[in-house]
């Protein structure tokens, strides 16, 4: 070897100390922290998460336990938000229901992300036939209306639990993320640093994980966040019409289904306004965070 480190590294060179640079991701996060709305949204979301995690400590009532003597009771000291049509405590259902709604939204997002990253990477990196196949599959799934497809699958399966609901949501909505990741890969593929990595002999897997994905992290993160919001709404919508998580398991969506009765809608707003607000606030905050991330990762896009 001509390049001998020993001869070239003189005693004057300080090997240990080097100026730390700012990575583009760090810069984006710094920019994100300046966005007050987004940071406030993060705090509100964290608060919601803490509340649903600490649910057993915040209420001693069991959200699934029916009590026939308490049917449709107005709020009282013991039952802050009254009781529902089966006599279950609304407050307990609200905070326990948040668990299910958030878990469904989050796991569906993670599931979609996995499918999207794998298929999008393959499609965008290799191109050609495999790309055509994946893209036609995307078209096929996109063609089917989401809600009708969900209803059909739920109707066929008869029983729905969280895992099934998450799978249904993920399996019907992976194409949009797959397309976004493929698109990002296609633009990156023409960049010279990808060619440079190939010229060095970097393996395909390392190119995808070290060169493509870190540079696509912005769009991936933004879309995953926004997607989580739509999944929470999807869960609520399905539960509202009775095709989501079945009773007695509480979710914000099936709490709202109580309001299908005109009597409750008129007389007991305390039964349906809180879960409705919870959905609204959560989704709004997630969207603000998503927008904040978008502005942080792509500062050119935020000045409309």
């Amino acid at each position, binding site marked *: 070897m001509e390049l001998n480190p020993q001869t070239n590294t003189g005693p004057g060179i300080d090997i240990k100390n080097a100026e730390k640079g700012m990575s*583009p991701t760090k810069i984006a996060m710094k920019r994100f922290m300046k966005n007050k709305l987004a940071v406030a949204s993060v705090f509100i979301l964290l608060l919601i998460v803490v509340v649903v995690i600490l649910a057993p400590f915040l209420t001693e009532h069991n959200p699934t336990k029916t009590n026939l003597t308490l049917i449709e009771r107005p709020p009282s000291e013991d039952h802050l938000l009254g009781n529902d049509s089966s006599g279950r405590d609304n407050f307990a259902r609200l905070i326990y229901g948040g668990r299910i709604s958030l878990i469904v939204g989050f796991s569906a997002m993670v599931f979609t992300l996995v499918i999207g990253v794998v298929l999008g990477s393959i499609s965008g990196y290799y191109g050609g036939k495999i790309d055509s196949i994946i893209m036609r599959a995307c078209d096929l799934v996109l063609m089917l209306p989401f809600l009708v497809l969900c209803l059909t699958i739920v109707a066929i399966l008869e029983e729905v639990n969280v895992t099934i609901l998450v799978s249904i949501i993920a399996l019907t909505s992976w194409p949009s993320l797959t397309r976004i990741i493929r698109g990002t890969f296609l633009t990156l593929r023409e960049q010279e640093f990808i060619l440079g990595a190939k010229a*060095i002999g970097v393996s395909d897997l390392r190119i995808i994980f070290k060169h493509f994905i870190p540079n696509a992290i912005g769009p991936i993160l933004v879309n995953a966040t926004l997607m989580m919001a739509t999944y929470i709404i999807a869960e609520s919508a399905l539960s509202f019409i009775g095709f989501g998580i079945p009773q007695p398991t509480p979710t914000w969506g099936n709490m709202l289904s109580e309001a299908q009765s005109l009597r409750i809608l008129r007389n007991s707003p305390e039964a349906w306004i809180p879960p409705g607000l919870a959905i609204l606030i959560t989704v709004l905050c997630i969207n603000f965070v998503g927008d904040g991330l978008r502005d942080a990762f792509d500062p050119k896009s935020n000045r409309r």
Partner: protein
Amino acid sequence: MSLLEKELEKKVEQDYILEAKNIKKYFPIKGGVFKREVGQVKAVDDVSLSILRGETLGVVGESGSGKSTLGRVILRLLDPTEGQIFFENEEISKMSNRQLRPYRRDMQIVFQDPFASLNPKMNVQELIEEPLLVQTDMSKSARKEKAISLLEKVGLRPDSRLKYPHEFSGGQRQRISIARALALNPKFVICDEPVSALDVSIQAQVLNLMADLQDEFNLTYLFIAHDLSVVKHISDRVAVMYLGRIAEIAPKKNIYETPLHPYTEALLSAVPSTDITAKREKIILKGDLPSPSNPPSGCAFRTRCPKAHERCSLERPELINVSEGHFVACHLYDN
């Protein structure tokens, strides 16, 4: 005839690091509903060249002449449509990516755009260590030491090794690219317009650095550029490309003093001179580069050539040997 024989004889004894034979790279143009192939862009159309160990071959041509594509095909970053590439007498043109991997140590490339050729999410140390990481089993500390010594070689401060590419200027980034290309001690480096994106003052620095490194590491360069002045500084031989073909290839002295091809003459007349008393006739070419998807018949240059005659549209000129090492593809010189 004796010249040709001499040339052949020389070939036997000469040590070619790289030989490319009849390289063609056609890009398909797809159209219609079913993405049928409706045409071809002949980016590189039957190019042969060989590079001696330790020399610098400059490749010059305007944008679209296929010089960058040629470089990428030689490194197998693009697959040739036809033709053979020999690296140290091994044919690499048909190897799979896996088979190619060990050869990638010996061949490297420095790209034109220093803002696109470095992964923005990796810091300098990671960038320089990456080739060592994937091609050698050096330890972490050995890689780090090597990275530091390479940074010093290319004239960057080692204590800025944890910075990211966006924190450097164009010239500094190009130095990082060079350090990365040299990390594996390659024998052959393709320089794909490494200085054309840089300021003129920085161009000279980077060119001098590359010349110094060539001496130090005994490198062979294929130096791609779009103007003759940059190539003059660093090359031993120069090839002039036009529309995917080699118009003229000769030792530097011949190209600059006795250019034969009308296109080379035109290119030379466009090089600004510092000697204001020198009388020079500027040859201004008419029109644009024809589309490589539909090249003119016969000689590709005939549509813009001031000396074109009837034969040029009928026959494609082959490279002919006019003097030692000087080849030209023009009907003016074959009788």
